[in-house]
């Protein structure tokens, strides 16, 4: 017992010296909820508030709170508040955008990219099964979509263009404004999965020609269990969930008011603190990337560099090791990170995003992803720069 605690403290020595207990660099996987958000949510969980549809004063208050959250979320990307449809997850919002719009559209063709989130990818596959045409536009070596390729992919029967604002796996920002201009000129609605990008890069729906936008609460340090699809006034969808007609009939079911109110507060905080936070995080991210590239021989960044990627996002390939072994070793040393793709982790298959940027199977298995957030500080970054090179040297020595 004594020995195990001694060895454990030796193992965690550098972290203890830095005054760091747990190094959490998986904000894209889950972001701790901001205490200021929790404080506003609490009364909505504890009572004194009704169902937004209830015919009494507590219901009226709930409805006001719901509409307040709608306005706060819409303000983050400059959309009309009435266009916000609250859902439980961004996956649900993406499904509603793609399948809901396709079901109402006369066209039977969708244009998307090779680096989308699995929810967009699988919604497109479902459309393919129903007989829709799906064109997946390839990306360059940084994972960037060429707007001209989108222009070439649009057909007379194209019902929707759906391209993410930023790939969650490799952090590359997409040319949303250019794609939006093309889609607008061709009269095709444009959906943007903005989950990773919102609040981190400028994204105003009118300037960028966006007609549908997916947002997630937890990516704003709001609670999980709330997300939103925003739609421009003239867009019509077929609902995927039928019932009492909540959320303009597009998403029936009693609203998760505490989480939605929390998402609204989180959106407000991101709007007011965003620019300073983005500068802080991109400096920390650069420190991490520079430190790892210098410390780990052969490592290289996936996705775009610098301003071309999400400011809180670092992803690397480390040849000669498997990501799951590295992540386990990091975890032993108190560092939480990810490989970038939960789906690929489950199946052991190389992720579609890494394949799209030209990684072979062995390279794709060596992908690491670090996502920083509101509580990330320099000492945590230095812990990773300190421990990762040792881990990699050891694992490479063990490798056959």
């Amino acid at each position, binding site marked *: 017992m004594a020995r195990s605690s001694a060895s454990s403290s030796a193992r965690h020595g550098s972290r203890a010296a830095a005054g760091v207990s747990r190094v959490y660099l998986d904000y894209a996987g889950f972001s701790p909820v901001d205490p200021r958000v929790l404080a506003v949510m609490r009364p909505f969980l504890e009572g004194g508030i009704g169902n937004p549809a209830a015919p009494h004063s507590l219901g009226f208050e709930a409805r006001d709170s719901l509409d307040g959250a709608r306005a706060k979320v819409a303000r983050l990307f400059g959309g009309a508040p009435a266009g916000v449809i609250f859902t439980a997850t961004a996956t649900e919002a993406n499904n509603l955008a793609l399948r809901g719009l396709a079901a109402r559209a006369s066209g039977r063709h969708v244009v998307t990219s090779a680096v989308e989130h*699995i929810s967009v*990818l*699988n919604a497109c*596959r*479902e459309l*393919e*099964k129903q007989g829709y045409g799906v064109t997946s536009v390839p990306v360059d070596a940084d994972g960037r979509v060429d707007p001209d390729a989108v222009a070439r992919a649009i057909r007379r029967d194209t019902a929707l263009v759906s391209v993410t604002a930023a790939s969650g796996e490799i952090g590359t920002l997409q040319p949303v404004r250019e794609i939006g201009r093309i889609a607008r000129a061709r009269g095709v609605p444009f959906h943007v999965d903005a989950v990773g990008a919102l609040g981190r890069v400028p994204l105003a729906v009118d300037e960028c020609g966006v007609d549908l936008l997916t947002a997630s609460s937890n990516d704003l340090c709001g609670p999980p269990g709330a997300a939103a699809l925003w739609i421009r006034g003239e867009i019509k969808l077929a609902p995927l969930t039928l019932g009492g007609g909540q959320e303009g009939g597009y998403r029936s079911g009693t609203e998760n008011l505490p989480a939605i109110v929390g998402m609204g507060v989180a959106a407000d905080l991101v709007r007011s603190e965003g620019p300073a936070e983005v500068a802080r995080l991109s400096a920390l991210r650069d420190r991490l990337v520079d430190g790892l590239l210098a410390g780990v021989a052969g490592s290289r960044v996936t996705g775009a560099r610098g301003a071309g990627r999400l400011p809180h996002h670092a992803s690397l390939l480390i040849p000669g090791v498997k990501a799951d072994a590295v992540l386990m070793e990091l975890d032993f040393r108190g560092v939480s990170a990810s490989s970038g793709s939960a*789906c690929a982790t*489950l*199946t*052991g*298959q*190389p992720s579609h995003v890494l394949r799209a940027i030209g990684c072979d*199977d062995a390279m794709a298995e060596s992908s690491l992803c670090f996502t920083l957030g509101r509580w990330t500080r320099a000492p945590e970054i230095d812990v990773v720069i300190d421990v990762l090179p040792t881990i990699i040297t050891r694992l490479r020595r063990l490798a056959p």
Partner: protein
Amino acid sequence: MLDAPPDQVLDCVGLFCPMPILKTRETMKGMAVGQRLEMLSDDPASEADMKSWTGRTGHELLSIERHGAVFRFLVRKTR
């Protein structure tokens, strides 16, 4: 010989990646080396996924047939 019924059948119709591969992997775990699994899937991506997965794991992809939207994969467990 090839027409002999498979040792197990796994119906993944209606499911999407990663489920067909995950379920195939789980089912194969409980089978003996040399046994054959028939997996049915209507995920448009499952053809590429199964080719890649069997290539990686070394299991033998004996045949791929397509009946309408449904793929029928026949895989032999090799290890």
